Structures are given as structure tokens and as C-alpha cells.
């Protein structure tokens, strides 16, 4: 009996050890220990990432894929190792499927312009969902202006889940791309990406997945999803800002035109014409964010070492605990109650505007996001101008949740 209890109480993660890996977590804000609940905006960095970038700049800095000197070769090797790590991280068939770029926003814009634009005519459709971040809406609106394609939106329910019946009804031959967010940044909803890809296949619709909020919280397997494109932002998964990847299926990457022109992406240049390089180099014009790519590889290695399944299990328990705890606060309404959620609790607190709450919580050392979360259509759906959002990470604890709830009650005492 006691053995069973011991197993049940056993945490899947050694959170105290993980916290030691993140130097910023020992900071104080307004004299209180930092409680960082703004991870969906940008996560913090472990020493492994900070050290990897520091090591690059202090010992190996040089441009990559050029030059034969030692530093150039070391830098190139590190950068390409990071690409291999990222391929392993999302289970891509090869590192040739991994394009380094700035993040999800650039990935979506690249696919929109280099892949979709040459393949569409007026009257064709792009299908996205009501749960998208602006990064998976605005590039398609630009494309619509350029080409005359229509942007169609899969509706969601009051719980913040996609209306799957409506989704199936919207699939047809005119749809030239389905863009779907894996995990909603504003509500935390996890979308059934594999099922959606399968349904899209029946109409030969390529699928782009925005994985920004998924990669820090769960194992991603692009081959199991069978998606055509998968976008990742480094800073959401404990890596550097301005460093991310686009995964693409080989046949598309080979077929696509380049996105940006310049150095690195060519084999041969004359003033008459240029011969483009093979993918992924074809999409990597100019000197990239080398230290960022290396740091991103370090963050992926860190997550693989901790174990994404264990992270998922720990965070699911923490999210359930937090959901229960915040509901004890009078006047608190959770926005987004999907059955399958990750990391995020978006809410309103009666009588307190999110921005006042953000300021008051900051004085208790708690960092949350307040506002529209770059997902204004979601705010419009729930008829709120803004929400407050706590977003959890693997280094957050139940003790922090308790202190957060106390701070919420304090805000009520001051303003409500």
C-alpha cells in the first residue's frame, strides 16, 4: 500500500534541480522572489543555452559555410550539429528538412510566399482556424491581397475547441493550404493536428502547423503528424530569440522557389543568372543568426535530456492544480476550457481590468501577460477586450501557484 502511495506522489520531474539550471529564477522583483508565469510570451533560458552562445562568441566566432580556417570550420560544425539536433527534436527524416530562420512568423511568411503564392489563383482558399495567433493570420491576408485567394476560418466552440464538424465541411478542392496552430497561445487548447492532416489529405491539401507553443511542452513528431510544414520559435522553448526553424517535406522544399535572395543560398552567380543552392541552404540567404541557432540546438538538447514526456506529465498535473486553485478566487472566469489543454490559463477577474491586475501582481513578484495576446479574433469571440494569462513552464511549482492565488486575492482587496 505504501509503495503505491509513494509511486503516486512521485513527481515525474526533479523541479528543484531544473530551477537551478535557470539563473534568472533566483531574481527578486519588488523585493519578492520572481514567479514567472509569462512563459507563453517567452520562456526563460537555462545555463546550457546561455553557455552555448557565450562559448560560441568567446571561443569559436566566425562566419559559417565560408573559409577554411579553424574557427570557420568549428562554427560551421556547431551550427550544423544544432540543425541535426533540431531534426531529432521534431523527428524529421533528415536535417535537410530543417530550415533555420527567425521563428514561426518568418516560417509562415516563407511558406505563404515561396510555396503557396505560385500555386494559387483567384477564388482558391486558405483555411486557418479561429485559434490562430496573428502570425498565422496576417501573412495569409497579405497573400489574399496579392493573389485574390479567400481566407476561410474554422470556427470554435465556447470551450475554445475547434468545431470539427464545421472543419470537415470546409474541406474541398479549392483549399490550397490548411494552417493550424498546434497549441493556442491565448487559450492553451491542443488541436488534433494528426486527425486534421489526415482529413486534409483526402483533398490533397498541404498542412502548415504553428508549433510555437507546443515544443516546450510535448514531444513533437512531424512524421507521425504527416504535416507538410511545421514552424518552431526558439525563445518559446527556452532558446534564444530570433532563432527558429521551419520543417518542410523534402519534395516541397526542392520544388519551392527561394524566399530571399543573397549569399549562401546560391551555387553560382553571374549577372545574367544564378543557380540556387539545395535546400535548406536555398532558404537561408545571408549570414544567419549563428549563435542563435547554436543556442536553439542547446535548448532542444536540454529538453530531450529532461524528457518531453516527463515534462508533459508534470505540467499536466500543475495545470490541473492551478485550474482548481484559481477557480476559488471570487469573480474569476476562465476563458478557454478545452478538454485537451497545455500550460495556459486565460481569465478575467470581475471588476479588475487586466492591466491593473498585471501591475498589482508585478508588485508581488508575479509576471503574467495581460492584453490580447496577439490573438485579437479570440478576444472578439469571447467579447472581452483583453484577458490576463498565466502560462506555466516545467520550472513552475504548486507553491508558486498558491502565492499567485494570494496575489489575486490581494488585487481584489485593492480594486474590486
Amino acid at each position, binding site marked *: 500500500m505504501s509503495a503505491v502511495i509513494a509511486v503516486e506522489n512521485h513527481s515525474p520531474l526533479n523541479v528543484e534541480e531544473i530551477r537551478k539550471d535557470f539563473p534568472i529564477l533566483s531574481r527578486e522583483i519588488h523585493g519578492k522572489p520572481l514567479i514567472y508565469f509569462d512563459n507563453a510570451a517567452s520562456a526563460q533560458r537555462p545555463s546550457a543555452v546561455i553557455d552555448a552562445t557565450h562559448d560560441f562568441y568567446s571561443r569559436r566566432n566566425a562566419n559559417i559555410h565560408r573559409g577554411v580556417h579553424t574557427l570557420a570550420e568549428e562554427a560551421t560544425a556547431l551550427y550544423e550539429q544544432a540543425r541535426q539536433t533540431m531534426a531529432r527534436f521534431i523527428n524529421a527524416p533528415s536535417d535537410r528538412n530543417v530550415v533555420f530562420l527567425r521563428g514561426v512568423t518568418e516560417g509562415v511568411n516563407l511558406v505563404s510566399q515561396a510555396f503557396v503564392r505560385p500555386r494559387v489563383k483567384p477564388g482558391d482558399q486558405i483555411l486557418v482556424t479561429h485559434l490562430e495567433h496573428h502570425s498565422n493570420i496576417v501573412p495569409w491576408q497579405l497573400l489574399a491581397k496579392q493573389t485574390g485567394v479567400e481566407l476561410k476560418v474554422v470556427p470554435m466552440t465556447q470551450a475554445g475547441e475547434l468545431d470539427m464538424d464545421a472543419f470537415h465541411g470546409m474541406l474541398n478542392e479549392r483549399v490550397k493550404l490548411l494552417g493550424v496552430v498546434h497549441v493556442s497561445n491565448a487559450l492553451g487548447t491542443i488541436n488534433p493536428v494528426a486527425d486534421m492532416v489526415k482529413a486534409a489529405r483526402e483533398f490533397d491539401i498541404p498542412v502548415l502547423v504553428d508549433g510555437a507553443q507546443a515544443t516546450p511542452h510535448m514531444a513533437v513528431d512531424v512524421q507521425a503528424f504527416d504535416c507538410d510544414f511545421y514552424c518552431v520559435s526558439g525563445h518559446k522553448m527556452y532558446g534564444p530569440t530570433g532563432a527558429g526553424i521551419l520543417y518542410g517535406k523534402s519534395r516541397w522544399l526542392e520544388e519551392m522557389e527561394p524566399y530571399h535572395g543573397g549569399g549562401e543560398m546560391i551555387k553560382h552567380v553571374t549577372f545574367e543568372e544564378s543557380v540556387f543552392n539545395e535546400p535548406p541552404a536555398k532558404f537561408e540567404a545571408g549570414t544567419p543568426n549563428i549563435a542563435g541557432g547554436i543556442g536553439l540546438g542547446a535548448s532542444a538538447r536540454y529538453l530531450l535530456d529532461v524528457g518531453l514526456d516527463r515534462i508533459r506529465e508534470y505540467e499536466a498535473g500543475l495545470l490541473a492544480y492551478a485550474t482548481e486553485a484559481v477557480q476559488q478566487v471570487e469573480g474569476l472566469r476562465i476563458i478557454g476550457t478545452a478538454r485537451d489543454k497545455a500550460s495556459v490559463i486565460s481569465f478575467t477577474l470581475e471588476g479588475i481590468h*487586466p*492591466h491593473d491586475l498585471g501591475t498589482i501582481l508585478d508588485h508581488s513578484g508575479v509576471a503574467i501577460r495581460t*492584453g490580447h495576446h496577439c490573438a485579437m479574433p479570440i478576444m472578439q469571440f469571447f467579447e472581452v477586450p483583453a484577458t490576463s494569462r498565466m502560462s506555466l513552464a516545467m520550472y513552475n511549482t504548486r507553491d508558486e501557484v498558491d502565492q499567485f492565488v494570494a496575489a489575486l486575492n490581494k488585487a481584489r482587496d485593492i480594486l474590486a
Partner: protein
Amino acid sequence: MSLQDLYRTAVIEHNKNPRNFLELENPSHQSRGLNALCGDDIRVYLSVDEDRIQSASFLGQASAITMASASMMTVQIARLTVGEALQTCDRLDQLLQGEADEALREALGELCALEGVRQYPSRIKAARLPWQAMKAALNEQQIASTE
């Protein structure tokens, strides 16, 4: 900087019980103050007759700072000439920039309760939003945005 300094009693009181929180029946001027990033969205209504603001009101959803600033504004500018109202707006800006002397404080009266936002750059915009909407209304502009 303490929370009590930001959320002074007068600010909390105006936020809970905003004055002139309604739409005027036949406003001569109106405009909307918008800060999409913060989710502040208010409408300001003015009834101006022969260069004098006869009455002012507002409606909307916004942070306590914006609500209190708007509520105090509608009280303060009623019966002022347009020029006097704009002068009050300039004085408030001086206060928020930390340039207020005693005479200016006396002229601003209750609006001095907004002074605590000085330490919060992102909240200064919130305090100024209703006043920008008032100016926009007087200039016959439909919208005033702080972004």
C-alpha cells in the same frame, strides 16, 4: 514606488463609481480613445456651446487609471471654455512628466491623484487616453489612439 501611490484613494473611488458614465443625448462632439494593446477603449462625449463645454461624459472599458482619469476629466472640464480645457490637458501632461509646481498642483486639484503613474511608463498612456480623446473630439476626429 508603492501600489498605494499608484492606486490612490481617489483613483479607486472614481474607478468604482465613475462620474458622467453615460452617453450625452445630443453631443456636439465625440470621439473614441483606443489603446488596443492594453484593451482600453472609451468614448468621450462633449456638448460645446459658444466655445464653452456645457457637459462632458464617457463610456467604455478600461483600466482603473483610464477610468479614473476620464471620470475626473468629465467633472473638471464641464463649464470650462475649450481653451481652458486644453490648458488643463497640458497641465496634466506636465504633472505626468514630473514638472508640476505648487501652483500647477492647485490648478489641477483632484487630478493630482493620477501622479503615481509617473513611475509606470506604460500606464502614463492610460492616464492620457481620455484627454487625447477629448482633443480628438474637439478636432472632429473619430478616433484617438495611443499607439
